[in-house]
């Protein structure tokens, strides 16, 4: 009897050691792979870069320092620049806000078809999901550039590009939220004779709407960044202003625009986290 236990302890220990060894091996392999990737990648980067890494590092602070110096020298005028670019900033934010809203509406429609618990036909669900995957996969810039080419410089191409990307990205999240909705409230309502609409209204919507809003807020933040970048390639707003002043090398104005952008992004971040925290009751 005792020898049996000892034997089983032996096998347990053996298994444990084998497992630990396997783990160690996997960790070593992945660490080696990461080191290899890093070193070879950085070597490729070094070989194909216009300037070398060391020279770049030494020059890293030159540009920001120059900019700040210029901004400091311009004195009080600098504050005027901040206000000068405020309308551009508002236009960019509006662009992002509108496209997030529009995209969220599309995402909602798509997500209804992509949720297994609402649509019983698996082909429709798969089709809707693949559609969203494709919409999501294109970087906004690719779509925006093509539309910019096809319809000239305006804000519209950027809006279309962001709407397309947002519809795909949010649609996926929305459909997952719908699929993960607890079925017990629905059953409860069904048991007391509620109709389909009443079940949706009182059992599904209260569960998913806070999630929807919080995802949309998160998207809004991402889209403000995206619409700035799209402005940079010709879609108007503060991005275009930034690209112009960078070409003309107006250091003080560059700093003013960057300041506006950073303040916007940080305050948006805090604002959306605050709202999301209130909506879904945690601060993640």
């Amino acid at each position, binding site marked *: 009897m005792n020898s049996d236990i000892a034997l089983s302890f032996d096998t347990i220990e053996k298994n444990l050691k084998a497992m630990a060894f396997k783990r160690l091996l996997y960790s070593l392999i992945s660490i080696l792979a990461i080191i290899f990737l890093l070193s070879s990648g950085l070597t490729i980067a070094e070989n194909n870069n216009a300037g070398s890494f060391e020279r770049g590092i030494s020059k*890293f602070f*030159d540009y920001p320092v120059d900019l700040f110096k210029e901004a400091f020298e311009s004195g009080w005028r600098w504050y005027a620049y901040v206000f000068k670019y405020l309308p551009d900033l508002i236009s960019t934010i509006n662009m992002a806000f509108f496209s997030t809203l529009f995209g969220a509406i599309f995402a909602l429609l798509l997500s209804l078809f992509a949720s297994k618990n609402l649509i019983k036909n698996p082909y429709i669900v798969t089709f809707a999901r693949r559609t969203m995957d494709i919409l999501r996969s294109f970087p906004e810039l690719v779509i925006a550039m*093509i539309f910019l080419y096809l319809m000239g410089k305006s804000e519209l191409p950027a809006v279309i590009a962001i709407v397309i990307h947002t519809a795909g990205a949010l649609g996926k999240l929305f459909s997952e939220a719908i699929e993960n909705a607890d079925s017990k409230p629905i059953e409860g309502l069904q048991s007391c004779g509620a109709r389909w609409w009443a079940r949706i209204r009182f059992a599904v919507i209260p569960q998913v709407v806070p999630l929807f809003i919080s995802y949309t807020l998160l998207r809004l933040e991402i889209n403000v960044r995206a619409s700035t970048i799209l402005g940079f390639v010709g879609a108007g707003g503060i991005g275009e202003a930034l690209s112009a002043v960078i070409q003309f090398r107006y250091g003080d104005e560059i700093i003013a625009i960057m300041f506006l952008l950073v303040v916007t992004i940080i305050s948006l971040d805090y604002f959306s986290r605050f709202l999301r925290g209130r909506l879904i009751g945690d601060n993640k």
Partner: protein
Amino acid sequence: MNYAITHDITNEVEIKHKKHIRVLIISACVFLIYLIGSIIHFNLPGLAKKWNNDRASMFMLDIYAHKDHIKMNWKEPEKIDVRFEGGYREVYKQDPSWLIRDNQKKSTTVNFENGGKFVFFPDRVEMRNFPKTKETFVFKLNQQGKPYVENYVGKEELLPSWMRATENKVEVRPSLYERLQVYGSKVEVHRYELGWKYFWFDFNSPLEGKGFFEGIALMFDKNRIDPEISNFNLVIKEFWGNEIWHHDTVLFAMVETLLMAILGTLIASIVGLPLAFLAAYNVTPLSSIRFFLRRLFDMLRGIDMLIWSLIFLRAFGPGLFTGIFAIAFTDTGTLGKLMSEAIENTDKKEKEGIQSTGANKVLQHRFGIIPQIMPIFISQSLYYLESNTRAAVIIGAMGAGGIGLHFLGALMTGNDFENVAYMAILVLIAVMCIDTMSAKLRRLLIGIEDKNN
């Protein structure tokens, strides 16, 4: 008594419900007003007007078709040549089967698949037999050297809608696949055909016209096409050096973009994790360090990737480093903040359990905290890898290089739409591959699907 209570509750519920409805209606109104205002502001109804239909149809056509240019100068009508996409180097040495030269009549006929033909004569061009019209149109030059349509001088409005005669140019487009342009100096016919011709081997290659499978078969063929070089190497070299599709530059640019994303994310996670430990209150007792790191994360994150890439562009010049560091800096901030929050949210009990066995601080963190945060760390890193693949394309277009820059360049030249489409499809495939791979890895490593994507 009971009734009264129920009544009160019912009343309260009804009042609340009314309030709820009012708020809902008001917000719906605000929402609608904003939507309508914005639709007017962004000029969505003007979309149709702005939409450049010619450009769009050319763009679409170029994506799935290729064309041959047949050109005749009025001054030397005997010299008619056929060029692939009108390129300078891509002149057909042998006439394609649809081009028939008749030396006695001094005519050259371009046949189309729908039976229509354009016939070149030294003094005129005829359009015959197109399914759209039975009429034969004749295009000539007048005394001043301006093109005109015979029998329609002064009656240009009677011409069919797909024909346009202006002072210096007559343009004929019976369908998307045929096009004739008559100028004072030359006549040009574009003949479209479906497909991406010369995708595998280019026009001047010894393997011209071979398909993918033929290429593969040739690789293992013993009879050398070029005695200097083995077939295997020849096929690779010719494919790689394709002058029309530029496989070498495009594919290398794609690899560069992927490298940017992967290395940027890798550096961000390697740097971000230790910093996150230092920024968590249950690991670092010193509040000054924590405060400093928190603000650092905020700064890294708040300065957008766009601004970082502009700064790095100045320091490193266009190239991989710009992209890698722009991504790494932004995401160090994001990952650091996320991970420090995750570390703070870990269960205390595991750490205490390990402490009770007498383990030192490092071991406590190693076995008490890391196993708890590892799934979050891996899934977040993979998620950022996905979104950074897209971001790397975008940063590339802003000047950091890679496929983004090539894409922008091809789009700006405005006539190589098949290359634009090729790169767009390549980006789509790469992004989808990375997405699927990271989803697989995530499932493999942590066993559950992450929903934060």
